[in-house]
Structure formats: structure tokens, C-alpha cells
């Protein structure tokens, strides 16, 4: 009996070794351990053996059964792993192929800068408003203390639609539209398009953007103007930014100043500002004895050129997607 057991073990071992699929292993299991399996039958024949052989043969057969069950399971595991691997291998992807990328929308660099500017002033308590681009001489000039014969009214510089209407040349027009409708304290800012009769070149476009704002209250001082604009500049241009105020002239402010910020080691002129001229306040129905006000207007396009290292203003308007995708 021991010989038969040994022979069986040897054969089973060989067959297991040569089985290449889990199905074959299963067939082997059935062949040896199934209801009519060889080993099952041997076990079943045990009672017919003589008493003295039965114990030893039973032990040998049970040992073989245990061994075989374990080997079958091991082999099945082994093959299952191999089969899964070959199935998954067939699904291998080339990780170096480009990813499927949905488009990602990009803000226009000027649009983004204007949003930033609105956010900064809003965080300083300013109300963000808008006004018409198609303006009247009344708001674009007269209410800003720019009389009919002032050089700034030169038709050379503005696009007119008729005698009274023009495309606004600055956003300060919005200030004087808003002021009569509010009671102080007022702090308002607007960001938008302006128009000037400029020949297109690398630094000029007939359409450009401006941020314009003002603040009216009892006791608004020139020093407040400096403080608010310095804060704005540090927010937009970085915490180390220095701001320079130099005397200038605008018909609607007195005193007036030009604002420059330090950026990468040089001074960049960003706009003009000052205390609203008392006549401007009067025309807006605000008592200039009781209230004082500051106002400012800054460019967006040219500062953006410096900020982002853009050397030609026309790039903003061409909308080449290779340009737009850089910001």
C-alpha cells in the first residue's frame, strides 16, 4: 500500500506541476479527490484491508490526502494569480500618452487684473459701481470742472458722436454721476473702458481701461488719499512697494498729484489723484465746507504690461490663444 501511495503522490505531483490553468487543477482535484476520485476510492477500500495493515495504510492515505489538498490549493492560487496577471497585462495602458484634458478657461490678463483691483477696493469698504461708456459732455467734462474751452476738451483727443455725446475719456465721469445720488460718507470705485483718439502703436490703443474712485466725508484728508492708495499699491504690487506722490494738475482736483509705484527697481507711473475741487463737490450738491473728498484714477493696461512683462499693448486685443494661455 505504501508503494501505491508513493506512486500516487509522485504522479499527482507531476500532474500538478504540468497543470497550466485553474481548470486543469480543478480537474485534477476531481480526479483524485472527487466522489469517484482515485484517492477517495482508496480511502473507501480501507475497511477491506486486513486489520494490521489498516492503521498504517489509513495514516498514509490521510497524509497523502492532506498533502494533495494543500498542493492543489497552492497550485490553484499560483495559477489564479498568473491568470489574473495575464488578463490585466492585456489591459496595460501607455502612461506616456497625453491625458484627456478638458479645456480650462483662462481669464484675460486685463480682466484678471481688473477683478483684483475691484476686490482690493471692496475689501477697503468701497462700493463697486459702473457707469455708461457713452457719455455726455456734462459728466465727462463740465461736472469735472473742465469748461468748454479747456484744452482737455480738444476734439482731437475724444471720439464724439454728436455735439453733446462722446465716448468717455476717463472713468471719473462715473464719480460725478454717482455723487449726487448718495449722501456722505461715500466711497465708490469703478473699473472700466475709456476711449481716446490715439493712433494704434505698441503703447497706445483707442480703447483702454481705468480704475477710478473717490471718497467723500467730513474730514477726508490728503494724507488719507496717500494712505488708501499706498495700501492699494501694496496689495496689487506687493508688500514692499513704495508709492510716490508728485504735484500735478487736473481741473477737478486741488491739490493734485501723480502716483508712481516702485516696481522691480524703477518708478512706474500709474495714475493721478487729488482732493476733489470744491467746485466739483458743489456741482454734485455736496457742501465743500462741510465735506472734503479725494479722488483717483489709475490706468490698468500699461501697468499690466509692466507687471507681466508685456512689450506691446496690442497683444491684449489680438487674443492669440497662445498669449491668453500664458496667464
Amino acid at each position: 500500500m505504501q508503494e501505491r501511495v508513493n506512486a500516487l503522490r509522485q504522479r499527482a505531483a507531476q500532474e500538478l506541476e504540468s497543470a497550466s490553468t485553474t481548470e486543469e487543477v480543478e480537474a485534477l482535484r476531481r480526479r483524485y479527490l472527487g466522489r469517484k476520485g482515485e484517492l477517495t476510492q482508496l480511502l473507501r477500500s480501507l475497511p477491506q484491508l486486513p486489520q494490521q495493515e489498516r492503521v498504517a495504510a489509513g495514516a498514509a492515505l490521510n497524509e497523502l490526502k492532506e498533502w494533495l489538498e494543500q498542493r492543489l490549493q497552492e497550485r490553484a492560487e499560483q495559477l489564479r494569480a498568473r491568470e489574473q496577471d495575464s488578463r490585466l497585462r492585456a489591459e496595460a495602458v501607455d502612461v506616456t500618452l497625453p491625458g484627456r484634458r478638458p479645456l480650462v478657461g483662462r481669464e484675460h490678463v486685463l480682466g484678471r487684473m481688473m477683478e483684483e483691483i475691484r476686490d482690493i477696493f471692496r475689501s477697503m469698504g468701497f462700493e463697486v459701481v459702473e457707469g455708461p461708456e457713452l457719455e455726455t459732455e456734462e459728466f465727462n467734462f463740465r461736472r469735472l470742472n473742465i469748461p468748454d474751452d479747456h484744452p482737455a476738451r480738444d476734439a482731437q483727443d475724444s471720439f464724439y458722436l454728436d455735439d453733446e455725446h462722446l465716448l468717455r475719456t476717463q472713468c471719473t465721469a462715473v464719480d460725478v454721476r454717482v455723487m449726487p445720488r448718495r449722501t456722505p460718507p461715500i466711497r465708490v470705485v469703478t473699473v472700466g473702458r475709456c476711449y481716446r483718439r490715439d493712433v494704434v502703436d505698441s503703447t497706445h490703443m483707442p480703447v483702454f481701461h481705468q480704475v477710478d474712485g473717490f471718497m467723500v466725508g467730513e474730514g477726508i484728508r490728503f494724507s488719507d488719499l496717500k494712505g488708501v492708495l499706498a495700501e492699494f499699491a501694496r496689495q496689487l504690487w506687493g508688500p514692499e512697494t513704495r508709492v510716490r506722490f508728485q504735484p500735478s494738475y487736473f481741473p477737478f482736483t486741488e491739490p493734485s498729484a501723480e502716483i508712481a509705484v516702485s516696481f522691480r527697481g524703477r518708478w512706474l507711473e500709474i495714475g493721478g489723484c487729488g482732493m476733489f475741487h470744491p467746485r466739483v463737490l458743489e456741482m454734485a450738491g455736496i457742501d465743500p465746507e462741510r465735506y472734503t473728498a479725494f479722488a483717483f484714477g489709475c490706468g490698468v493696461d500699461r501697468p499690466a504690461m509692466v507687471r507681466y512683462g508685456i512689450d506691446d499693448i496690442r497683444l491684449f486685443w489680438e487674443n492669440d490663444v497662445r498669449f491668453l494661455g500664458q496667464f
Partner: protein
Amino acid sequence: MELVDLPTPQDPAEWEERFPMLGLGVEAVERVGDDWVFDLETTTNRPDWLGLLGVAREVAAACRGRLRPPQVHLEESDPPAAEVAWVEVADPGLCHRYVGRVVVDVRVGPSPAWMAERLERSGIRSINNVVDVTNYVMLETGQPLHAFDLDRLVGGGVVVRAARPGEVLVTLDGQERRLHPGALVIADRERVVAVGGIMGGLDTEIRPDTRRVLLESAWFHPVAVRRTARALGMRTEGSTRHERGGDPERARFAAARAAQLIQQLAGGRVLRGELDVYPEPQPPRRVSLRPARLRRVLGVEVPDEEAADILQRLEFQVERGPDRWVVTVPSHRRDVEREEDLIEEVARIYGYDRIPETLPVEVMGVGVVAPEVDAERRIRELLLRAGLTEVLTLSLVRADDLERVGIPPDHPLRRAIPLRNPLTQEHTHLRTTLLPSLVEVLRTNRARGNGDVHVFEVGRVFQASEAGWEERKAVGIAQMGRSLRGTWNLPQEAVQASFHSLKGVVEGLLEALHLQGWEIQAEPLPWLHPYRAAGLWVDGRRAGWLGELHPEVCERYDLRGRAYVAELELAPLVEAARTIPQYRPLAYTPAVERDLAVVVDSSVPAGEVVRVVREVAGGLLEACEPFDVYAGPPVPPGRKSVAVRMRFRDPARTLQSEEVERLVERVRTALRDRLAASFR
């Protein structure tokens, strides 16, 4: 410096920084030998800075120096000037003061080198010793001067008057100028001899043989000079100075100074006296100043002493009262009219950089954003999230852009507002729609080999209507090429822009705005593919259009492929949008899905099938969406199969399949009855 005594030596290099702190912009600095040449930019309110003396006065005030104007000692000869020449102002509205001087027996010749050099450094060509003197004194004092050949003036004198119809003058530059009636001119007895304050006439100019000179030093009305210069399209050193309004008191000094220099350089004798027409001398202006207000406006404690000292250094006279000072303005500072102007003067010399940076002590408020600004921001963000890139395009377009993009002549969008004074052919009208600008963006990119362009713009459009001019905001979208990157192995139709990719963007936007009652329906528009075009309605109000750009337009713009465009009106979207969406309870009961392949006539839109399903399926229908559209065998010709998926759910209980079957049956019946549908 010749014109100022300075208490301490000044380093010219430092003045590149100091001039701007006084309000004088430095355009350029150049070293010429030992000289520093500053090119200064002056503000329009300071005509006094258009002469060196004015700048010197500022420097003197800033460094506590003393102004040293050139001394004029005239040796006058008989006969009196008034006996050989005359000056008249016929229209005092044009000219407040006219000072004439007569110099006789001059020998016209080249100027000495020092003068020619100085003129040249200031950008003025040297002509001869008489003309050069007038220019030199203008640079020195800011007062424009002119020299006439007295012998060529008919009647031996000049009159300031308005031009008469038809008058013509050949100016010094050889140009024939047709003068409009009312133009400011100088004339002799017979004809115009100069355009006042702008340029002299050729016929009365100083020539090598000129012996007798009539010098003009006048204060012309700035507006008159400006109007005349504009009408003639002229701009000269003289007109610039006159336009800003000078100092009538300066006219006499400048005339005397010029006469003296001519005598020095060209010999000759200055005749006794001046011809001075000055009917209404201006008394000095007096302005009051409250030092307390000065400190309140500036936000800095400028001591009374310092404020008064600054004003006096600028040649203002200060009479100090307890709260209120009376300040007398010097004649060269006619720009100073009221208290704020004096405050600025003090601030300027005190130094803007010495004023602290403070934050307003006003009540703090929270910044708010006006609804129209906020709406634009939201829409912009949603479109960015949809993968579109923001563009900015000019609001000015060419006259024929609208036609080129396919808008027919009688269409309301052709009612563009024209600019009265366009600068170029490229920008003559205000755009009525974003369409031409966006198609131009596609064209530019296509021409540069950028084939995948998906962009939007939120911008203003303008239109003439019966009611007048209208300005409103619109949202424009343009798409062409692939909307996905990394498209290897993908079918083209899945990744290329299409009507439905565009519609998807629009739908996404409307959904994100929580709009309820909107509808997109086929609508042919002239600039769109006639069968791939639709209109958008929100709450029954027209809110825009979308579709494939007409193939002819694509061809015209050389797009070499299909393009998809849309334009939505901002106002109807924003007005119907809900800013605070309300929660709807989620259903947790199982849903039952049923698919139905509906075969209908090819002309029946899928939306019709869905509409019928929605109408009859009852309240348990949660969703219904087409998922396949097919034409071809076995579907009979002229018909198509629209497969729709219906999802039924009752939030309160689990649905029985029999009741769902009953609903589906009801749907089938309705489709059969209304759309002559059969089922696959």
C-alpha cells in the same frame, strides 16, 4: 545759475528728482559740455513755467534762493515810438494787452554763437539776430514775441481784429492760410499780416534788409488763440504759450528786454516809449486762506510760520489774520483762484513726501458690489469654469464689419452708432454685437495656426434705436476646433466643437444661474447656418441666439472649418436668475427606468418627443432624456428613431412595475396619436 542766487550750491543731478517733487516732470536730462539740459514737462495750469524765469522762480522758492531776473536798461532815442508807428486793438475780447516797441537802424545778421547755441539746445533754429531775440526772450520769460518789418506794414502800424470773410495770409512757413471769419489776426491798414499769437506773415517778416522793427508783446485771449490755431491746424511755440494764458504784466518787461537785446546784437536805436494798449488792467487777485483748513485738508500739521513763509517765497503777499489770511496773488500766478489753490501751493513746496499716509477715520463700511457688476462677475466665472477663455475686443469696429459677418442691411443690428470724428478706417462705428469681434478672434488664431479656440467676452454693445442710443451688456461665445486635448484614438465628432457643444455651454450657464423658464428653439438667422441656428428665450423674453456660423461667413474670414457662435443678452439672464437657490428634498426611494425607441417622421425634433412624454407621463416622471437618435435600416426611409430614457420615482414609496407599465403605455398612446409614432 544765471537767474537765481542760491544759498547753497546745488547738484544738478539731484534736480532730476527734485523738479518732479515741485510738479515739473523731467522728460530727459542731457549733459552738453558743462551744462545740464533738462527737458521739463509742465502742467497746463502753469503758463509761467513756459519761461525759464518761471522755473527759476520755483527753484528759488524751493531752496530759499533769490530770483535774479535780467536787468533791463534801455537807452531810448527820439523820436517817440508813437510818432513812427501805431498799435490798435479793435476787438478787446481778443486781446487784453498789446505792447509795441520800435527799434530802428538795425543791421540784420547772424546771432552770436552763445545765443544760437542756447536756442538750438531748446529746439529752436537760429534765423537772424532779430528773430532770435524774440525767441530767446520768449524762452526766458514765457512771453511770445513777434517782430514785424515796420517798413512793410501798410500805414505803419497794426490792429488786432477778427478776420473778415475771405481773408488769406501766407505765413512764415510759406503756407497759404485761409482764415475763418472771427480768427484772431493782426492786420495793417490793408491786409492781414499775422495770425495773432500763432505765426507771422511771410511778407512782413524780418529780412536781411530790414531797418525798422516793430516788436509785438501781447496778451491774446487764450480761447481765441486756441480756436484759431485749431481751425488752422497749427501749433507753435507761441500758440502753446498763449493758449495757456500768460501774464499781461509780463508783456511790457519782455518787450523792453527784447528791444535791449536787439540793440545789443543788431545795433539800432530803441525809440522812446512803448505803444501800450491795455484798456482794463487787472487788479491783483486776493484770496483768503484759513490755516486751520489747510491743515485739515492736508492731514499734516504745517505750522503757520512755515505756510506763510512758503507763500512769500512764491511771491505771494500774506496778510495774516487770526483765523483767516488774505493772500495777494502775483500777476504771473493767475491760476491761483481760491483757497484750495493756495493749499496746494503750500503742500507742493512743503513737500508731498512729508505728508503722512493715514487711513480715513470715517465710519467703516463693508464694500458692496453693484448688482450689474456682480452679475457680470458671476457669468464670467461660470464661462471660465465651462472651459472658455476670456477675450477682450475693441468696442470700435469698421463700417463694413457688420455686413462682412452676414448681418443684412435692414437688420436692427446694422444700426451702429457712427463716430463723428473717427481716427482710422478701422474704427468708425460702435459695435452693435460682439459677433464681428469674436469672429475676428477666430480668424486671427486660425491664420496663426491655432485651430482650437473656445472663447467668450462679456462686453458692451451699442445701438441706435427710435428711443435714442442704447448701451447694454452682452455675452459672446465663439468656438472652433477641439474642446479636449489629448484626443488620440477618439472619434472626431466627440471632440470637435459642434452646435451641441455650444448649446451645452449655454445650457450649463443657464442652469448655473438657476434660471427656470428658458427655451432654445430653432430660428434661422442670416449670419448662421440656416439649419443649425437657434434662439434663446427666458421667461418668454428674447435673450439671445446661438448656432453654427454661416459657411459663407466662415469662408469670408478664411476659418477653414466650422465655427460656432452665440450671443446672449446680460439683462434678461440676470433679471431671471435666482441668486439664492432653494433646497429641494432628495428622494431615497428606488427609481424605475424605462427606455422607449420612438420612431417618428424625420422632421419631428427630439424635443417634441420629450415634450409629449413630459406632458402625459404625470408627476412620477422624474426625468426624460433622449439617448440615441438613429435613421437608416430597419427604420423606414423618411423616419428616424429617437430613443428616450424615462426615470420614474415616487419619493414616498417604491413604485410597482405595473403602474410604471401603465404610464409607459399612456406615453406610447400619446406619442402614437400626436406624433404618429411607432416603436421599435
